[in-house]
């Protein structure tokens, strides 16, 4: 496992899960691939399927409707895997937290284990890069 971990540390593949956010974080994740921030220069690649991903990047407060799908995406991701919760919603449900909110199942932490949280509404691309670098260090332990 340690050999695999060292490979992942050099080039993690990321799957972006949109779990009911307002798109703010998701736009910043698109901006991560842009020529200005260019995450691929760090060896990070966004993949189209959770089955070949190492890191899940989850945004949003996880509505009830999305909960079973998020669970299934997590189950489909092969070990070793790490999860990043992006944005205030991903960390704590943010503005949507309320006793009477009938449609929120989240935050992400309540449904799948989270390794790194990136706060901000939405976090700047630099912050997301920092979070991804932090989760890469977590593959050691």
């Amino acid at each position: 496992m340690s050999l695999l971990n060292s490979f992942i540390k050099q080039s993690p593949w990321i799957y972006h899960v949109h779990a009911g956010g307002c798109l703010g974080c998701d736009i910043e994740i698109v901006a991560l691939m842009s020529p200005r921030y260019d995450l691929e220069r760090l060896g990070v690649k966004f993949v189209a399927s959770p089955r070949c991903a190492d890191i899940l990047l989850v945004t949003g407060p996880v509505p009830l409707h999305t909960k079973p799908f998020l669970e299934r995406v997590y189950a489909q991701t092969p070990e070793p895997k790490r999860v990043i919760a992006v944005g205030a919603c991903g960390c704590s449900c943010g503005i949507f937290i309320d006793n009477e909110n009938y449609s929120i199942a989240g935050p992400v932490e309540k449904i799948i284990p989270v390794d790194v949280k990136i706060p901000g509404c939405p976090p700047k691309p630099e912050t997301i890069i920092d979070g991804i670098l932090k989760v890469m260090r977590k593959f050691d332990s």
Partner: protein
Amino acid sequence: MSKPHLNLIIREIKADTLGEEVSDLLEKGARMIYTSGVDMGVRGIQVNYYFCFDHHEPSQHTILRTYLDRKNPVIHSVTPVTSQADWSERELIEFLGITVEGHPNPTHLWLPLDWKEIYTGEKPVAHPDTERINTAPPVKPLKDNIVTLPLTTIPYGPYHPAFIESNYLKMSVEDEVVRKADLKLGFNHRGIIKLMERRDYYKDLFLAERVCGICNTHHSLSFAMSVEDLAAVEVPQKAQMARTLLCEMERIQSHLLSIGLIGDLTGFRTMLMHAIRIREEMQDCLEVVSGQRVTHGLIALGGIRRDITENQTDFILSKLKIMKKSVPQFFDQCQSNDVLMGRLKDVGILKRENALKSGAIGPVARGSGLRIDVRKNSPFAAYEDVDWDIVTENGCDCLARIKVKMRETLMSMHICEQCCDKIKIAPSSLAAKVNELPCGETISRSEAPRGELLYHVVSNGTNTPAFVRIRVPTFINARIMLELIHGCWLADVPAIISSVDPCYSCTDRVTIFKGKEQSIVDMRSLGGRR
């Protein structure tokens, strides 16, 4: 600058004369915007039908209102009269339990797939402390209520590489032709409208901003406009100009992203990269003005929160100068690519009369030659004081819709320049004070990048609104997108989706039917690969 007064007529009618009244208004040239339902307690369920008259009578709006019995809420469907009411009535069925008689397709659109188990309590919900993390896959796959033909079924989503957002599109395909397509929404349903009723007006402004991250200024602006209308507050000139500037800057970044996504979905990833590269200039401007790249929080009730200084306007003007070179260059490069043009031309044709009939709005309507734009039809902010015109194209296909977006981007840059100049010389007052909100109700409309946005705010004199109803542009356009997908080639579907540019986060703020020859296919779509 006097804003033309919003002319709102509310007419209470009997439920059984509804069909005649609606067709009467439609004959007069009205367009049905939305249908909303509110549970008003002892008075019964209030159902509102919103109409506007576009360019026939500017700033004129009509609401037809009827009350239904709470014990037995039954209403006759107006969908056979006009398809513009289709999704709104499905929303009534779903969220208020109203029986809509004569609706052609009364299936659920927004509720979770296992809603029956969740809401009737058949399935015990795990206690958050005892069973905190459940990572096991579901024992039996969830069934959706999308009816498919006995043909090959191709699912798109809920998580599909082609979508940034989660939504679920299912198509029945015969050879290469899509015979039937249906959409399942609700993956982003966060109950925002309900939360708004629980929080005060100042907090609602931020909630409105988080309906959608791309058009957040328009959402908070529409909410602020309706509250200002309720409080009868005159917004200062500088604030009006700053709002116009913000809206147009947002339109530029949104249109550039959507043009880039068209390239991405049709197989030109370089086009997306160039679009984002140019868009970053606009994001810098927005960051300088508001301190945030995406959610700006600059709109306040009665005006704007922070001043836009001369240094900031100079920065915007310098960035616009760069963009005036790079944006037309990028658009020329896109349009000189024969392969891209070939993929978009004569694809997804929405004829002018069809667009009119189905109530298309935004770039979709303008790509079919309709002069529908709230900025002209019912002017808000300072759009009357700047020089601009509605952009229309007569191609009616995907290419025309994209050309509308391209030309609108250039037009927005032109408006931004004028706003920057006018902000410098405007009097320095930033916000009028909103003191007290009397009982009353109002609607406000604004033109978001994807089309018309409607807010209906009702005040009961307290610090929280009695109710808020939101109609977002994708609500109408996504249904038109499904109509366009019917009968087209499978390979054209991404082009059509991206040209309509649906935003499901907006739309989701808010009985299984089984035919004889039709079957329900299990949801095996997860992690679909391109």
